[in-house]
């Protein structure tokens, strides 16, 4: 790929990067874009960032300082623009005044029409670079597609692929400073206890000795939760017989959390449950790190769970023809080397049975072995820790991305 930037872009002034984000069905897209922006801004010689987001209300839930009604705003040193608009809007005027040079399309989100016109405007002649920042996947194609050249209809507008991932041949995962600090804090028992007490003070403590309970966080796609509630109740009952700890369950805000809470209420509230409000991103990170076990969906939360070093069950996005099973199998292969065979076998069975379903349908096998996996927590913990440490040995995504951009521009 030929040079897109002049030497002055790299050496004498900050690199300009525009991040585009469309919120598709939840907060994983904006969660990733927001975390990436923070992480890029924390690097030495950070780039100058502009964010173009189609759902500022979703952004404001992650960061309450965002004004969801503003077409243009300054936040954390970034310019934030609303996606919607036309060529006569403030965003288009700002991008015409300072033309985009490097544009990150988060998850192949495309480009707003007003920006498309500016990017493909043949005058001035300077070259531009688009980067398709794809979804996180454990499949081998992450390594195959990562850093591959792509094309646009203009010879002046270069394009390339950049893939996050779990292996060293990918762009890695975003490790922003806030998450890293919280992770370090949660890695020691005193730090974790302190974190738990802070969270309970913030979220409300529903049970005596809540800080010492076995914390489980549930953030999954909608499903029939009656089986999960029964499984959790069975695991909780073991504590009464002196085996393990009583549980405390956190139901993430959203339809999945609502249905879990409804199933829990329908079963007579057999254990304490906290129905969470929507948490700002940094608070959500702290909760994941404070939990003993999580049921996790999505993009950003999946990456956080993987980096947490704590046992978790990943629910893949249900796809046509149950294609999610390919993705689950690939992730299991990334996990497998870090576990003893017996413990991994139970984990694998749970992952496969939990995910083998159509959207909102029952599992196919009906063999969800949640209690047995929860009972194996002491055996699983070292494996998840080792997995997260292998991820930390990869460079973080923001550094990898900036290196990549400097190599090809």
């Amino acid at each position: 790929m030929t040079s897109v930037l002049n030497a002055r872009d790299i050496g004498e002034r900050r690199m300009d990067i525009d991040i585009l984000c469309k919120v598709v069905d939840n907060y994983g897209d904006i969660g990733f874009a927001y975390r990436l922006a923070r992480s890029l801004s924390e690097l030495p010689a950070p780039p100058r960032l502009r964010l173009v987001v189609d759902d500022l209300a979703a952004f404001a839930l992650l960061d309450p300082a965002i004004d969801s009604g503003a077409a243009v705003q300054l936040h954390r040193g970034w310019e934030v623009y609303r996606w919607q608009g036309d060529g006569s809007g403030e965003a288009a005027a700002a991008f015409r005044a300072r033309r985009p040079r490097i544009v990150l399309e988060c998850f192949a989100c495309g480009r707003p029409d007003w920006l498309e016109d500016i990017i493909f405007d043949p005058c001035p002649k300077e070259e531009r670079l688009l980067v398709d920042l794809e979804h996180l996947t454990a499949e081998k194609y992450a390594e195959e597609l990562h850093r591959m050249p792509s094309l646009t209809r203009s010879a002046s507008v270069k394009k390339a692929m950049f893939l996050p991932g779990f292996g060293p041949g990918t762009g890695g995962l975003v490790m922003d400073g806030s998450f890293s600090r919280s992770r370090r804090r949660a890695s020691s028992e005193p730090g974790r206890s302190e974190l738990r007490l802070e969270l309970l003070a913030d979220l409300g403590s529903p049970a005596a000795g809540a800080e010492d309970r076995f914390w489980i966080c549930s953030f999954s796609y909608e499903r029939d939760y009656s089986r999960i509630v029964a499984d959790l109740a069975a695991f909780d009952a073991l504590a009464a017989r002196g085996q393990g700890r009583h549980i405390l369950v956190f139901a993430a805000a959203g339809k999945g959390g609502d249905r879990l809470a409804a199933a829990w209420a329908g079963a007579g509230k057999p254990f304490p449950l906290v129905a969470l409000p929507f948490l700002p991103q940094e608070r959500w990170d702290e909760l994941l790190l404070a939990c003993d076990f999580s049921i996790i969906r999505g993009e950003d939360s999946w990456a956080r769970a993987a980096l947490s070093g704590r046992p978790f069950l990943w629910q893949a996005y249900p796809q046509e023809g149950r294609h999610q099973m390919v993705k689950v199998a690939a992730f299991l292969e990334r996990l497998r080397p870090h576990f003893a065979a017996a413990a991994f076998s139970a984990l694998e069975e749970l992952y496969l049975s939990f995910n083998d379903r159509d959207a909102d349908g029952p599992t196919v096998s009906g063999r969800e072995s949640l209690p047995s996996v929860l009972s194996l927590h002491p055996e699983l913990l070292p494996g998840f820790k080792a997995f997260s440490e292998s991820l930390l040995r990869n460079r973080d995504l923001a550094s990898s991305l900036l290196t990549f951009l400097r190599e090809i521009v």
Partner: protein
Amino acid sequence: MVVTSQLRTGSVFKVGNDALVVQRILGQKTGRSGMVTRFRVKNIVSGQTSDVALDAGEKFESVDLDIFQMKLSYIDGDTYVFMEQETFEQYEISKEDLGDNAGYISADDDYPIEITFYDGKPVGVTPPILVERTITYCEPGVKGDTSGKTFKPATLDTGIEVSVPLFCDIGTKIKLDTRDGTFVERAK
């Protein structure tokens, strides 16, 4: 305009002033954001080939092409010679330029093939969507397995390897979808 999802082996599209022809589809991946396809493309003018990955939403300018119906007359080494049926004029296309489509066509075929010309030069072919080919090698067929859900590799009379159901045997004639090389059904 043509979007990535419309590109097939033999499709021609423009990047700036350059016309590129798709020689091979190297692989596809599906995700929540849609398909990303890896293509091997050849710059028609410079002759340079490159492997690229295109996401589903990217749009390209289509190219003014001349398309003629011809028959594959014979194959001479890596050169495929096509004949225009009215003028009997012959045109040569290399196996490399035919890309994946070389595996779908044979001089024994009766049906015409669309030959794409750019600037007076043949640059690619478009075989019919469904073609019939004969299996020249595969593991013995499994009697009774007519589900068509389990596949095994098979070599065809054109030399390419495709996946076919277990019930197929050497000599079985099959119908293939030339857009992606998949088995469709046993030919009658």
